[in-house]
Structure formats: structure tokens, C-alpha cells
């Protein structure tokens, strides 16, 4: 699992059946201290997350299939939690209560 910032939304009217009616979010993985890292992904939202949230993401097929109750589905990336705060070396490196200006997410 890793942390990511929700930077956008994806609308897909034509897709495989298991993805229908799922909300898709554009996710930018971040390091524990909040710097962007790795490849931008698209994840299925199962945590009622929204733009600007820092979220917990699992990018592994079996877990995703188990979560969505679909043993044969081509599922991989799922948002499984919204992060309240991250503690790193004794201090908070992220706090959801400090409302970050969305511009900080600017691509």
C-alpha cells in the first residue's frame, strides 16, 4: 500500500463491466513527507475520497478483487482509505485538518 494525493477525476462512459458505476480518481503517489513520486495512476474510489485528499491506495489485484467481491475481475488499483494524519520522525508530515489550498496540488 502507498499514499497518494487525489489530483483529479476520470470519467469513462465505456468500460469493462466490473468498473461500471465505480468512481475513478487520478492519483499521484507521494513519499511519506509528501513529495510526488512514481507514476500517476487511476484508482477505484472505495473510501468516499475527493479532490485534494491524501489517500491510502492498494495496487494489487487479489486485494482489489476481494474488496469489490469480484473474483475474476480485471481490478487492481483501489483507494481504501482517507488519511487523517501522517506521523514521521515524531512530527506530523501531513494533517488533514490543515486545509491545503488546492493550488498546492497543481500539476
Amino acid at each position, binding site marked *: 500500500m502507498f499514499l497518494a494525493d487525489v489530483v483529479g477525476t476520470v470519467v*469513462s462512459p465505456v468500460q469493462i463491466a466490473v468498473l461500471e458505476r465505480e468512481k475513478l480518481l487520478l492519483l499521484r503517489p507521494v513519499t511519506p513527507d509528501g513529495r510526488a513520486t512514481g507514476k500517476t495512476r487511476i484508482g477505484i474510489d472505495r473510501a468516499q475520497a475527493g479532490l485534494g485528499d491524501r489517500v491510502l491506495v492498494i495496487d494489487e489485484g487479489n486485494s482489489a478483487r476481494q474488496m469489490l467481491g469480484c473474483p475474476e475481475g480485471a481490478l487492481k488499483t483501489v483507494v481504501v482509505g482517507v488519511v487523517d494524519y501522517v506521523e514521521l520522525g515524531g512530527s506530523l508530515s501531513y494533517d488533514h485538518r490543515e486545509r491545503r489550498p488546492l493550488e498546492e496540488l497543481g500539476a
Partner: protein
Amino acid sequence: MYLARVIGRVVATTKYAGLEAVPLQWIQPLDETGADMGAALVAAAVVSTGPGDLVHFVDGREGALACPETFVPVDAAIVGFVEEAAVLGREIGWEER
């Protein structure tokens, strides 16, 4: 899953049994700015798409699971056509259209 743009087609008359009906397409993964992210790759087009389309694809074993026949040698599959990808309210991925 990743965002990508279809940049071309690949035609292979002789394919592994089970993949005959699955078109292959070149896709270029995109980041959240709409810029190229990594190298282009060939993906099985499970959802009908064509060059220029914005799509999302799944990689790894899940690529094969998306195909009509699931025990096939596929490691990337286009699983959806993307109508709109928005970052902070700004649409991305359509600059070249």
C-alpha cells in the same frame, strides 16, 4: 490502472489461441499533466478504441483477466474509454486533438 492515449495499431495475423478477436494497440501512458509518462507499450484493446482516444488500461496479470479468454499471455489491456480526465477542473489529455 493508468491513463494513456492510443497512438497506433498493431496487426498480428498469427496470435496465441484465444487472442484472435482482441485487437492490439500502441498506447502512450500519460501523467496528471497530460504529458508522456514512460515508454509506449502494446495493449490488448478489450474496449473498442482507436488512435487519438484517451483510455485507461490495467497492467500485469489483470490485463489477461480483462480479455474474453482469461488464460492468455497479455500484460496490459485497455479497459475503458476516457471521456474526460480533469485535474483541478482543467481537462487534460486533449491538447493534441
